[in-house]
């Protein structure tokens, strides 16, 4: 794996356009997560496809968010959290000492449950990431990045006339799309979404879902959701977590029509308890 570490730190990796559908972007192997002595994730192995949406479902406290946060090492920020196991991204071990989590997070963007724009202008919200990573050579280039991120997030037409307005002045759904645009602006390869629609109304949710579907063509997206309908609507692959274990993982269509495991069956048909 050492040989791949160098590849990892490069900002762009050549991508083959063909055979993408089956390519594994992030390969999680035998992940255990502990909070102090309490084990939250038990031996989860999950290969995640590139250019597809993978949804993680499961009852509250099943560890799906914890697992998601392993992928961009956000668990590092929690002192008592310990992660064991290997996660390979494009073949490189992201938990390797030579990988700085800051660099990793520029390639693995994250969108959170509650829209959390910085209390700055819309422009600054998006420009922040590219600025700290030095992605833009000048004001002009930065403008371009901001514009393209907003266009990709489907927000450009709504905000192009008020880029200096505070990000917090937008509606909840717009704020969440702003957060997605902010994540896109640092040109990540993987986007993690932790229940991105749980605070939004159905129309705003539908917009985000539409956006996720569009983004699928360019990114590897992992989404944690409480809404099974949402998982069914947006994802191609679905993983069902229960009590910190990965119970079932497969094509969304199959999971929602004919799950193999009775726990999955019980959960998605609303029989848990």
């Amino acid at each position, binding site marked *: 794996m050492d040989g791949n570490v160098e590849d990892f730190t490069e900002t762009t990796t050549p991508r083959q356009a063909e055979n993408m559908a089956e390519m594994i972007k992030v390969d999680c192997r035998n992940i255990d997560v502990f909070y102090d002595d309490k084990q939250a994730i038990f031996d989860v192995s999950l290969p995640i496809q590139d250019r597809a949406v993978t949804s993680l479902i499961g009852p509250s406290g099943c560890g799906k968010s914890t697992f998601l946060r392993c992928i961009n090492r956000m668990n590092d920020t929690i002192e008592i959290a310990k992660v064991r196991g290997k996660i390979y991204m494009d073949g490189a071990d992201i938990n390797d000492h030579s990988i700085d989590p800051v660099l990793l997070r520029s390639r693995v963007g994250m969108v959170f449950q509650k829209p959390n724009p910085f209390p700055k202008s819309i422009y600054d919200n998006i420009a922040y990431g590219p600025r700290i990573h030095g992605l833009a050579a000048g004001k002009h280039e930065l403008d371009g990045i901001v514009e393209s991120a907003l266009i990709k997030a489907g927000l450009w037409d709504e905000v192009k006339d008020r880029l200096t307005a505070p990000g917090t002045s937008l509606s909840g759904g717009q704020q969440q799309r702003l957060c997605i645009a902010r994540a896109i602006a640092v040109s990540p390869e993987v986007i993690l979404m932790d229940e991105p629609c749980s605070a939004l109304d159905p129309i705003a949710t539908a917009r985000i879902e539409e956006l996720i579907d569009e983004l699928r063509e360019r990114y590897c997206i992992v989404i944690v959701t409480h809404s*099974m*309908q949402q998982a*069914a609507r947006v994802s191609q692959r679905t993983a069902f977590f229960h009590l910190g274990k990965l119970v079932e993982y497969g094509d969304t269509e199959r*999971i*929602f*029509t*004919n*799950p*193999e*495991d*009775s726990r*999955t*069956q*019980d959960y*998605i*048909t*609303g*029989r*848990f*308890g």
Partner: protein
Amino acid sequence: MTRNESPMSEHIVTAFTDELEHLSANLLRMGGLAEAMINDVSRAVMTYDLELARQVIKRDESIDELEAEAEKAIIRLIALRHPMAADLRAVLGAMKLAGDIERIGDLCKNIGKRCLELTGDENRAALKGIERMARAVSHQLQTALDAYLRQDVEASIKVLELDDDIDDHYTSFFRETLTYMMEDPRQIGSNTHLIFMAKNLERVGDHATNIAKAVYYMVTGETATGDHVEDRLKRTGGTS
């Protein structure tokens, strides 16, 4: 693979379970009605009981009503409960079942109508053929409905096998009746009715097969094509 053998626990929303149960009870009632129609119509033909035949014709209406009711319940379930996985299959299966049973009712009604056209002095041997077929079809439908009630894959596979017998029955009945008609051209009129009746019974058998296939899909989540069924039989150690 313990899923199919273990009984389903209740939904957290109990109304959901109630509605599903109500739906399946409704379908079973429809099935029972259809079964009785087959038996009664065959008796009417055998005994030339025109009154019974008229009754059977009338009974189709109640099946139609039940079907409409079931359809409404299904739409309600899909719209309000968003059934998933096994529930989704159960609801879709119920929709198919309702359609099939309704068709069975129609076919029985058609037999009843043809019964009214008979003269009462048909070839006994031919009538016996109809009765045999009716019994076989009735048995097949009963097995299929049993399979639905118990969510029994084995039983549903048996129904598929039974269908071959009925096809054989029909072919031999057809040939037999053709011989009678050639022997006695006066019988052509009534025997043609009998052939159509047999054809209808054969179609009832097909619908029973459809019900069995729906049950198979409901339970296993797989389409009951030859490969799947064989795989399954191999796995469970059953006979082909």
